[in-house]
């Protein structure tokens, strides 16, 4: 998503920076779906995603004066949203269920009837692995950026991504194709 989805983006942003509530609402209307989508893809529940959506736009309304316009407005809003989503993951401390998933996942060479669809497989990844896959492969964040947001190393981000793809490959039944 870019400024094309927000007609007269520069003027709207300028008014939003001055606290104009109509402009702030226009920002919400333009970017609430991509923010929700990112949140929902990273977190497990709709409730968490809705909370992150609200938190993100509350932060956007409070801090838009600090947006200097040196990147796209969507890039800035997305960084707020991903930060809130990762904070939520840390706060919830969801049970990391990778090992359990390994046990219930189809064994090598198992019937294709046991294959999961991609959304189910993503949902079965650990929170951290799922967040890394989404942020890197879909949102386009670098490992350096992900590591910075997670407070981890670049190696950690890379290994999470590789490990996640190995699991997805298995769960999607792609090993049988090799």
């Amino acid at each position, binding site marked *: 998503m870019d400024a094309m989805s927000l007609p007269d983006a520069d*003027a709207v942003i300028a008014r939003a920076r*001055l606290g104009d509530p109509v402009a702030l609402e226009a920002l919400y209307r333009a970017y609430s779906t991509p923010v*929700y989508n990112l949140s929902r*893809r990273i977190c497990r529940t709709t409730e968490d995603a809705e909370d992150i959506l*609200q938190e993100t736009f*509350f932060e956007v309304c409070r801090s838009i004066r600090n947006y200097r316009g040196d990147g796209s407005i969507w890039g800035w809003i997305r960084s707020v949203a991903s930060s809130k989503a990762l904070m939520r993951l840390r706060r919830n401390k969801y049970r990391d269920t990778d090992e359990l998933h390994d046990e219930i996942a189809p064994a090598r060479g198992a019937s294709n009837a046991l294959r999961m669809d991609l959304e189910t497989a*993503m949902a079965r990844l650990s929170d951290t692995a799922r967040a890394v896959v989404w942020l890197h492969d879909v949102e386009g964040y670098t490992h350096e950026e992900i590591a910075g947001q997670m407070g981890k190393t670049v190696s950690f981000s890379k290994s999470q991504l590789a490990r996640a*793809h190995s699991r997805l490959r298995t769960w999607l039944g*792609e090993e049988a194709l090799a």
Partner: protein
Amino acid sequence: MSTHLEMAQLVALRDDDRSEPGMAAALDHFGSCIHCQSELERLHQRTARLRALPSLAPATDEFPAVRARITVERKRRSRGAASIGLAIAATALFAIITRDIVHPKRLDAEQVLQSEMSQSQRLEQALHQWHSDQRVIDGHTAVVVIQLERKIAQLDAQLAASVSGESAAPIESQIKLWRERVGLMNALVEVQVTKTSNVGL
């Protein structure tokens, strides 16, 4: 390299990341291994499928909740700013009372000063009662309001310095500053009352 590439190497190949250890040998192997070439293709396809997942939209409109939280925060900030204004006025008043005891002849000037301070406070209250934080303004007016508020904040800093301790400014200078403040407050009230409309935010 005789064994097939590991997933980390395949991902590094996909992302053109040459920093992964053993990439030179991995590239050699990849060039002649149909299995690894197929794995990389599957990785590309999986990534494309991830990017093609449908966009999920929120079932509820969260903006009313966001708006309510902004309103609460703005009111809280407004109360904080009013407290600072009152504190400055109280400090100034204390300084005047103290000087009355030391310099009784300056009474006329100090009456003028008190009059300016009272006028400033009345305007402050009028602005507060107008609930300017709940009204919408156009972009041009917002710029004017921000400029006026900045000037008032600068004056407040000067006023705070003018009544502090041994470096207190002469009373004539204080009167001048308070008059400036009254003028700016008048302008701010006029802009807020004539150029805004209530939208409940």
